């Protein structure tokens, strides 16, 4: 069940295109057409930052331009490659996997006449916007054009009110249908001007909430004094308590709480202090800070992992070498420390190609411990790990946390229908569920069986003996009712046993391994429940 749910939550490239189409009411495509008509000539050399599934890339190639489309998502690029047809207008389109922050590393100076980007800058923190704009400054020819289409909040009371009135319901519908969302750019004109560009609004749509900025290089970027690096300290507030509670029960439901990416200081680090890398899941960052504060002085580089925990983000292709390289570049890390050594969390090794980081940036990569609490000892021992630090465990505390995470899902899928349709069953089922899941969490390592399904058999046996004992000594349930309860508890045990599998680091595979069997059991259960109704129905 959780798998189906997770798959539904995942944004597929096609969904993304559809979502943007709905959110911009089709106006984005009109602006894209405008770009091609006004700025693209035969033989123009064009870079498209964040090409997505390549719609605009293709349009520009059709108009005769030589286009390179970059995107940081492998899935988007795969869809773009699938969609692309040989351009008829004599142009050419090529796709490359890259983060926007890497363009100055990958392309020579003044190599583009036009740089285009749609709905990309609004996804970046301001420092990254500035960094990428400076890179565009280098890559454009002196007469080159920078064209940025993005969402903004219109000025003026009435347009603003109208914007929020239309935008909020539209955003909700779009998210439900396609799990896609966008956000508006703030004060982008001054960011553009600071980076040495002129900034005119060349076209707009949707009541001035979707605009095309046309910029040319007018001067060198205005030097900015580097803002002081923020210090992180563990703190408890209403916000963190809410986030803790939310992530405890609804961790798997997006939007995931994100921490702002960038470089942070923990304690009083100096130019020789170690640099630790982590992802931008809010809970991860706060746990790392809690583990390190007062123990070590270090720099913490928070890279973009789409708000997902390190291991899953790396496995799912959201936390990659590109993201870490982007974070190194954007944070101007080399100005802060004298050494060139990064410490990466060991669990991102399944997705972050450390050799790519070494080759492209010259920074050395060390694999830190799995748990943040081991970092102080690891640093004290001159970056030596004991086996306890490098092997995952699934201790009681983690098991309790993980079954609690599944409870949020149970509450939505099982208890909510109970509350609505079979209210008299709510408390018995809730108590059975709580007892079963927490009992499972405690005894998990001692139950025989090497994966969740096998472990659920002894679990079911224990739970059923408990039920029969309860019935024989206390409740004296009638046979029919006892049988129904036994069936329910059997199903719940199997479900509980399997559900924890995907959340545990020590069992391979997940519930999806036995979907066919699961479907058969579900069908049998449904037949048992509905069968008598159908048979007695004349």
């Amino acid at each position, binding site marked *: 069940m959780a798998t189906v749910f997770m798959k539904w939550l995942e944004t597929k490239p096609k969904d993304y295109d559809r979502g943007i189409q709905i959110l911009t009411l089709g106006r984005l495509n009109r602006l894209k057409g405008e770009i091609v008509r006004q700025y693209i000539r035969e033989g123009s050399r064009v870079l498209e930052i964040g090409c997505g599934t390549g719609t605009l890339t293709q349009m520009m190639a059709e108009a005769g331009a030589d286009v390179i489309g970059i995107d940081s998502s492998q899935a988007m690029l795969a869809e773009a490659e699938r969609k692309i047809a040989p351009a008829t207008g004599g142009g050419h389109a090529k796709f490359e996997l890259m983060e926007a922050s890497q363009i100055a590393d990958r392309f020579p100076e003044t190599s583009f006449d036009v740089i285009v980007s749609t709905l990309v800058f609004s996804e970046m923190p301001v420092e990254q916007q500035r960094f990428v704009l400076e890179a565009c400054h280098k890559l454009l020819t002196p007469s080159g054009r920078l064209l940025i289409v993005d969402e903004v909040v219109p000025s003026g009371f009435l347009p603003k009110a109208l914007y929020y009135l239309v935008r909020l319901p539209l955003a909700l519908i779009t998210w439900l249908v396609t799990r896609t969302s966008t956000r508006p750019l703030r004060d982008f004109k001054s960011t553009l001007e600071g980076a040495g560009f002129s900034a005119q609004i060349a076209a707009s749509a949707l009541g001035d909430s979707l605009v095309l900025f046309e910029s040319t290089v007018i001067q060198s970027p205005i030097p900015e004094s580097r803002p002081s690096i923020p210090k992180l300290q563990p703190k408890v507030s209403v916000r963190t308590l809410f986030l803790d509670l939310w992530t405890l029960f609804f961790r798997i439901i997006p939007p995931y709480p994100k921490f702002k990416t960038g470089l942070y200081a923990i304690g009083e680090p100096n130019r020789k202090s170690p640099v630790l890398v982590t992802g931008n899941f809010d809970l991860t960052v706060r746990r790392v800070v809690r583990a390190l504060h007062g123990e070590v002085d270090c720099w913490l580089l928070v890279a973009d992992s789409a708000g997902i925990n390190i291991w899953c983000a790396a496995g799912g292709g959201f936390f990659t070498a590109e993201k870490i390289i982007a974070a190194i570049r954007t944070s101007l890390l080399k100005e802060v420390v004298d050494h060139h050594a990064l410490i990466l969390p060991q669990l991102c090794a399944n997705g972050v190609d450390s050799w790519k980081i070494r080759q492209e940036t010259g920074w050395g990569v060390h694999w830190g411990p799995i748990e943040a609490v081991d970092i102080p000892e690891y640093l004290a021992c001159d970056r030596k790990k004991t086996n306890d630090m490098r092997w995952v465990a699934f201790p009681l505390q983690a098991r309790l946390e993980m079954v609690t995470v599944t409870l949020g899902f149970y509450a939505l899928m099982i208890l909510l229908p109970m509350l609505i349709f079979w209210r008299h069953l709510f408390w018995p089922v809730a108590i059975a569920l709580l007892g079963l899941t927490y009992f499972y969490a405690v005894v998990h390592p001692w139950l025989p069986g090497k994966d969740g399904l096998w472990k659920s058999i002894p679990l079911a046996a224990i739970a059923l003996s408990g039920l029969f004992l309860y019935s024989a000594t206390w409740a004296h349930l009638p046979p029919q009712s006892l049988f129904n309860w036994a069936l329910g508890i059997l199903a719940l045990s199997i479900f509980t046993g399997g559900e924890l599998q995907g959340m545990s680091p020590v069992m*391979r595979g997940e519930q999806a391994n036995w979907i066919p069997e699961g479907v058969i059991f579900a069908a049998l259960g449904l037949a048992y429940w509905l069968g008598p109704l159908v048979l007695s129905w004349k």
Partner: protein
Amino acid sequence: MANPTLLESLTEHITLARTLRTLRIHFDPQKCTGVWQCYEVCPIGCWTPDYERRLVEHHDTEKCIACGACVLQCPEGAIELK
């Protein structure tokens, strides 16, 4: 939920999960140059470094969770998961 892409991606996911269960590590000691990245990153402890011969030894295939970290971090391409 009339979403064809959901069904597609579910089928894909199930196939992936099913293959994941049968994946095994294949290690070619001839290619190994002893950088021990696999040992550094394996969260289960399936690799043991051989400090004298600058090699690693692979064992415990039963415990392997097929996370793929060693495959990605091996600079020599000596490890495969299939």
